[in-house]
């Protein structure tokens, strides 16, 4: 049957046609397409990878930011606490200082008052003694005007000395 016997002429033309197509397409056709597709595939893969990395990076950045924020907040709290403490300390210290100062001033005032009082007392005493001596002088002068009286006085004094001697 002629359908099943290959014609040499057609074999020849088929070899030429297919040969040309094969040569050209294997060299310049399909490898180029495959390479381009591969390139695009790699590019897409790389882009996805990059996007994923960027996402991760972003997550990390957000995390870092949050951490920094909490850190800052904590620091702020600490600083605030510290300042409060310092303020209180300062106020306390100031208060104590003021108290001490006033105490000192009070003490100084007190001692001066004391000294002045003593001075005054001493002066008064001196005045009083001088006055009393003068008074006594005057009294004595008054009382020991006659002889008799003087003698009596001497006797008594002598008695007193005797008594004290014995």
């Amino acid at each position, binding site marked *: 049957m002629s359908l099943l016997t*290959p014609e040499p002429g*057609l074999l020849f033309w088929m070899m030429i046609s297919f040969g040309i*197509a094969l040569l050209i*397409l*294997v060299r310049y056709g399909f490898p180029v397409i495959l390479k381009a*597709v591969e390139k695009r595939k790699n590019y897409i893969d790389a882009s996805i990878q990059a996007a994923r990395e960027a996402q991760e990076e972003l997550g990390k950045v957000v995390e870092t930011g949050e951490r920094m924020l909490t850190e800052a907040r904590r620091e702020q709290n600490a600083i605030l606490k510290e300042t409060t403490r310092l303020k209180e300390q300062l106020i306390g210290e100031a208060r104590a200082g003021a108290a001490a100062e006033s105490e000192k001033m009070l003490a100084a005032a007190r001692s001066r008052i004391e000294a002045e009082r003593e001075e005054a007392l001493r002066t008064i005493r001196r005045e009083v003694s001088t006055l009393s001596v003068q008074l006594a002088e005057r009294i004595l002068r008054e009382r020991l005007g006659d002889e008799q009286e003087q003698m009596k006085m001497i006797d008594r004094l002598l008695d007193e000395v005797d008594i004290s001697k014995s």
Partner: protein
Amino acid sequence: MRRSITLAVLILITLLFFASAVAALPVNKEVAGGEELNVKEMILHHLADSYEWHITGNGEKDLSLPLPVILRSKRSGWHLFLSSRLHHGEESYHGFRIASEGKYAGKILEIRTDGADSRPLDLSFTKNAASLLLSSLLLILLVLATARSVSRDPLKPKKGLAGLMEMAVVMIEDELIKPTVGKDYARYSPYLLTLFFFILINNLLGLIPLLPGGANVTGNIAVTLVLAVTTFLVVNFTGSREYYREIFWPDVPVWLKVPFPLMPIIEVVGLFTKPFALMIRLFANIMAGHAIVLGLTSLIFVSVSLGSTINASMTAASVLFTVFINFVELLVAFIQAYVFTLLSAVFIGLARVEPHVARSGEHTPVNKKTKQIEQNS
């Protein structure tokens, strides 16, 4: 959807009307009465190659594209002339004629004085040859244009034809070549892709009934023979050492190999049956598709003698079935190109086997898969 159904019904009614009108023409009655249409001869004639590219004709006058005839006679050397010099049967030119019957029906014979006409070396640029060259050029243009478009800006996805071609290439590469050939698929994918697209474009052109197509190219045994031989060469020239060891010294009991090499003989026969099956499968599928379409079309002409009513209804049925079969053929065009490429890839994959790690008949997964594919198809 509704609109398309209405359209189909309208077309059907028009067809019926025209068919009955045509059947009522006296000319047709005359033809029906005159010469009986030989369906078998008509189909075989259309399936076979021809020296001219027939476009249309009404029996007396043919419109066809003449093609160059190239002959080499043992006595008179080379001859080159247009096929329009030779017409069916009667005329002869430079001592050549086209045989109308016998072993070489439809082929050019050299007229010899002793009556025993002989067949010269016939390298004529026939209809199939022209179609092959045309489709090859078309394929080259298509692929190179795609390659150019894709490589100009590889990062931008392509639209239109380039996008379609690229998608098809990637599909064949990823779903057919990669899983079946194995790890060094990149070496073979240009060949396998060329094979696929070459068969596909020829199958598709064969479905177009007018001039750029219409040739029964992939349904011609010479064409599939060359394709199968190419695959055979690729498979066996790039076969691994293990592949040849499995052919000549397979893992079977020794008495199957020595003294009578039963298994090696079977394996060697297998080497040739694989491409032979490839050749026959493609040839038979495409030829059968063309034969069915031709047979259904000839239903119209066969039923002319049965009266106009039957003729009209048969015409409608014929057109409907032909359209249906053409859709099936569209599917077959793709499937056969796919199957040819798939089996070529499987054979290449089998020829690239590596020594099994465990020598106790345990196959590697790839090997198992390819063997399975081979059995299924």
